[in-house]
């Protein structure tokens, strides 16, 4: 089974945060780190969505990509506003950095693809990415969020990811194998 490097990096980054054997001194991220992870996770999907909306010739893939941009921009706006309100400066961590580099690698790979190959790579990645992010949300980000408003925002963002994942899975079924 072929797993792209970008996805492995992303999965590893988020997996590291969910297990006790993280390379950082503390496995559990603090609120500032959680805020940054959220913003980076959204930004990675916004960038991928912008590329797909521009490049894809498939109407459903384009619409899905536009929804990714629209929705993740909205969540990012809320997360950023909340961080400002709470006077929390989002803080980088090994996780957020891995997420960013994983996202950049995936973006570079997708820029070299086109047509049906592009669509498949984009949608397959969206399915895995949303599965991974949801796992991190449930196992790490929500349980470790100390501030009640941050926790509440993450909990209210969860249904969005569920919808995205289902949407991506349905889309995956319509694309040639």
């Amino acid at each position, binding site marked *: 089974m072929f797993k792209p490097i970008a996805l492995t990096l992303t999965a590893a980054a988020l997996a590291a945060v969910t297990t006790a054997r993280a390379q950082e001194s503390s496995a559990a991220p603090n609120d500032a780190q959680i805020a940054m992870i959220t913003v980076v996770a959204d930004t990675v999907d916004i960038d991928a969505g912008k590329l797909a909306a521009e490049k894809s010739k498939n109407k459903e893939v384009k619409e899905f990509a536009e929804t990714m941009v629209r929705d993740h921009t909205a969540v990012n706006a809320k997360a950023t506003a909340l961080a400002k309100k709470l006077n929390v400066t989002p803080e980088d961590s090994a996780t957020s950095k891995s997420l960013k580099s994983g996202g950049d690698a995936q973006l570079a790979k997708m820029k070299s693809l086109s047509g049906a190959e592009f669509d498949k790579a984009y949608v397959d990645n969206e399915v895995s990415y949303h599965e991974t992010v949801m796992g991190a949300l449930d196992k790490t980000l929500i349980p470790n969020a100390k501030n009640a408003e941050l926790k509440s925002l993450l909990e209210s963002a969860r249904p*969005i990811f569920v919808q995205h994942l289902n*949407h991506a899975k349905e889309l995956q079924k319509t694309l040639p194998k």
Partner: protein
Amino acid sequence: MRAMKRGEIRIVVRFSAAVTWWHFAVYALVLFVAAFCVGRYSRGFTREASVAASVLTISSRAVPGLPPPKANPSDVIQVIIRGMEFLPAKLEIKAGDTVEWKNDDITPHTATCASFDSGSIAPDESWRHTFTAAEEIAYACTFHPGMKGVVSVK
């Protein structure tokens, strides 16, 4: 003052300071403005609310020479969009009612089907549609195909 006649009762009001007709005019104006504001406040400071209130008032009064007012005036019923859901997912209304979709969610949504399309409803915004025919209409959010709702018009 003139002398009082037998059986006459006189009431004299004396003010401790010089009071002129202008004072009464100002007090009357202040009272009028206050009453106006109270009236508006109870109708929710909008022209729409005032118009709606007056329309409902008018429609419930019988006017001679005109057909009797409708027994059930049309209502505005809300569907709240929250957590990627239409709440309630199935809404029962009567013909002539208006449904208002209120976006209480984080992301934009739509309420769309063959017979109506709200276009993008931003968070905190609303969109209304009046249903005139008795039918069952299934609709969905065009951004999130998994989000579905039904309006059952009796």
